[in-house]
């Protein structure tokens, strides 16, 4: 037995494989972490990048050095275009620091990180009702700051209290190394190359925008009605899941409001313009909020947001979640696969087309003069909020009267879920 040959060829092959896979991952760069050039037909689209935004975006934003930021969860990520015409030259580049499923805390902490490492002076923040819901068993002190440190915060340049984060450099080395030297990355590199031919491949642009083209694949095979059905189901389950509040028990305040307030404090200190907006929901979503009895909570949430925002002169808040021609767009009812809606993907996610209309309003000060302004959304304030909410209630009733079959459908779903919940054996 002579093992010398074995050991030698094993060592050489191992090193060669290590170098080639790392090099390959680096060249293809499936998550956009290394910022290697995007070559058409090779690695231009990043179909798997959406799975890694939590790791990649904090590094990307530092590299891009944007002058304006879009912040929020998956809704603005898919809806608001960082290359929209209303972003004037001095605001560019614009980076979409949006993360699907991120909590308010995560969104704000990432924004703090971006504000400390980039020259951004304008931030637009999309807020979402579901992100602010608090479970009745939450007895936390909402004012306690910082809350316990989460894993994701290691890759942010500053801590929650604004100090330099000592673990940042080590975490970034780890993130770059483990991304380059990873089997998952290798698999995603191969997927990236093979998916270039698919015009509906999922993607993340260099500016953090998600065009959400992958919805089209689902719509073509299963139809948009299925997407609506599935999302309504999910939303109603969440809304009925707990006896929700927007405040922690024992307080008239929550960690999420506190977090948002801290972002506003920072923006005031640094003279940063902050525009808040409530994402548009499709009327079916709004109907689910009504039917689950959470409409008063929805209104209370808006009041708190307006009150908070109006404490700061640099800040304003827009509400796009009302009833209008866009949000009441008719959704396909049967499994017709060619029928595609103009403004929405499903009840919770709006298309870029609708996002463009929103940006025209929010960025009115920066738009080119000839920009067409369609009626959409309202700038809300302490002065007009009650009137505004009353108007929305009327609009909701009108919608219900005009769309009895949708109301019945949502009612059925709600009572189904309630029954299922009640019949479940307590554990």
């Amino acid at each position, binding site marked *: *037995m*002579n*093992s*010398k*040959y*074995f*050991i*030698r*060829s*094993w*060592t*050489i*092959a*191992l090193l060669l*494989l*290590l170098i080639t*896979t790392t090099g390959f991952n680096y060249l293809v760069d499936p998550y956009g972490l290394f910022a290697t050039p995007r070559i058409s037909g090779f690695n231009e689209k990043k179909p798997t990048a959406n799975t890694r935004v939590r790791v990649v975006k904090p590094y990307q934003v530092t590299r891009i050095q944007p002058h304006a930021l879009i912040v929020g969860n998956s809704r603005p990520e898919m809806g608001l275009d960082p290359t929209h015409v209303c972003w004037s030259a001095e605001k560019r580049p614009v980076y979409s620091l949006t993360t699907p499923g991120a909590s308010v805390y995560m969104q704000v902490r990432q924004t703090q990180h971006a504000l400390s490492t980039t020259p951004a002076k304008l931030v637009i923040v999309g807020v979402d009702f579901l992100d602010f819901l608090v479970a009745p068993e939450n007895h936390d002190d909402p004012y306690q700051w910082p809350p316990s440190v989460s894993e994701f915060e290691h890759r942010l340049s500053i801590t929650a209290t604004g100090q330099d984060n000592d673990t940042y450099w080590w975490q970034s080395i780890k993130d770059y190394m*483990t*991304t380059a*030297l*990873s*089997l*998952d*990355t*290798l698999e995603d590199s191969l997927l990236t190359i093979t998916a270039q031919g698919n015009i509906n491949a999922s993607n993340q642009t260099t500016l953090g925008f998600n065009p959400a083209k992958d919805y089209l694949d*689902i719509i073509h*095979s*299963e139809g948009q009605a*299925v997407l609506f*059905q*599935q999302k309504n*189901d999910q939303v109603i389950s969440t809304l009925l899941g707990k006896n929700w509040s927007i405040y922690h028990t024992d307080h008239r305040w929550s960690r999420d409001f506190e977090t948002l307030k801290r972002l506003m404090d920072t923006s005031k200190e640094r003279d940063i313009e902050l525009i808040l907006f409530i994402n548009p929901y499709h009327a079916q979503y709004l109907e689910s909020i009504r039917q689950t009895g959470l409409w008063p909570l929805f209104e209370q949430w808006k009041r708190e947001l307006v009150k908070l925002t109006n404490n700061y002169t640099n800040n304003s808040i827009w509400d796009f979640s009302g009833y209008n021609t866009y949000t009441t767009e008719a959704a396909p009812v049967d499994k017709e696969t060619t029928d595609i809606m103009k403004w929405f993907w499903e009840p919770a996610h709006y298309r870029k087309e609708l996002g463009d209309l929103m940006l025209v309003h929010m960025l009115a000060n920066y738009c080119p003069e000839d920009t067409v302004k369609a009626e959409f959304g309202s700038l809300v304030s302490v002065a007009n909020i009650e009137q505004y909410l009353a108007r929305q209630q009327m609009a909701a009733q009108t919608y219900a009267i005009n769309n009895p079959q949708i109301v019945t459908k949502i009612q059925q779903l709600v009572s189904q879920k309630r029954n299922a919940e009640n019949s*479940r*054996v307590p*554990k």
Partner: protein
Amino acid sequence: MLFNSYEFILAFLPITLAVFFFVISRYGHEPAIAWLVSASLIFYAWWNVTYLALIILSMLINYGMGKLLARHHSNGAVRHGKILLIIGITANLGALGYFKYANFFVSNLNIIAETSFQLETIILPLAISFFTFQQIAYLIDAHKGITSEFKFLHYALFVTFFPQLIAGPIVHHREMLPQFMTKKTLRLNVDDLSIGITIFSIGLFKKAVLADGIAVYASPVFDAAARGETLTFFEAWGGALAYTLQLYFDFSGYTDMAIGAARMFGIKLPLNFHSPYKATSISEFWRRWHMTLSRFLRDYVYIPLGGNKKGNYRRYSNMMITMLLGGLWHGAGWTFVIWGGLHGTYLAINHGWRKIRSTLNLTAGWTAPFCKIAAWGLTFFCVVIGWVFFRASDLSSAIAILEGMSGRNGFAIPNAIAVRVGSFQEVLGNLGITFYLGGGSQFLFTYLWITALLSIALFMPNTQEIMRNFSPSFNTHKSGDDDALQVVGPLKKLSTWGPTRIWGVFIAIISIFGLLSLSSVSEFLYFQF
């Protein structure tokens, strides 16, 4: 320190090896053993320094007791020896019982006696289930006079040697200590190194690529059951089969890594797995699954209870007691007890059936391929049912999964798959299959992974078979052709390892897969036991 971590593979293992070979060539055998003991203690302390005291104390006491027991034996003081042995075993089991079962005992006492004792949650010291068993075996054998004199340093290495410390194989002093004493084993040897690297790499691949790869399809199903959700047929079976394969590749991968790491130092560990899912009977399954635990239970529980020497009734009840204890050893929970009881029943039925067959002389015809496949199917089915209890967080979630597997909750497939099979969808609908939204790729990948991994487990040669020309482990497994599915001849030949250049390249590919999977670390399932 986990075997599947950068710390272990890139730092601990190479450094320990390098220092070991340096010390042994410069200062000789004993200092090298001292180094291995220190390195192993560092390895253990990496998790929790406080438990270091526990393992050192346990070793000192047991070593001392072993010495005394051996002396009593040679003096013929059997009675004194027996009392001492009982004290020793009680002390070991007492420590294990306190750390592992105190919470379980108190919570059950509270239910039965309607009391409300509160006990702080006791954290289970890593490896305690394993080193307790190894030392109990040592004490019993010292009492019987079948241990010889060793130095404490050798004994300490027998208990702490890092490859087998945390989750086995449960080594026996008879196979380890002689290896530590000869100069032939512990030395730098390129042959051992290349065999070790190969076995370790195969193990890492099993764990990091295969077990962790399929784990994501098992856990959500058991979690859903724990939340009280209703599972349909394909979901429940998908979860149960995925876990069945995850557990096998996780634990046998760990064992391979242990055997491989030990071999780099020239030490051979005992076999722990031999393609258990190929078994065509439940007793053969137990001869191939976690073999060192089965061996321990047989030698130190079943046989002392009387084994099969005291008539049929005692034989079956001994078997049941042994399996129930084996179940409880895995964890303080009723699901483990049920799992043990289930396997006790399986074994009893298996032995009964063998008896009937031999009395009625039904042996002829039972070797037909059909019979073998049926026997395999039944065995595998029983094992999967057992794993449902083993994995489920409580009894009600185990039952929820079994309900799903029985088809009581209906048969459903994702809509996304249904729309892609064209007009066949109607046929499926007529068969009573319903369609649900979402989860299309989850469903597809669950069954792709199950098919791939099951094929490997059933048709590929195992690590020992691949390495069979180089005595990969301390012992070998022997069984008849009918006891298990057999690897087909050409594949067997093709897959036989040799220290050649081509195998070097092939193992490098296996190693790189393992190395590249380290970026997403997960624990070994057997660390919790």
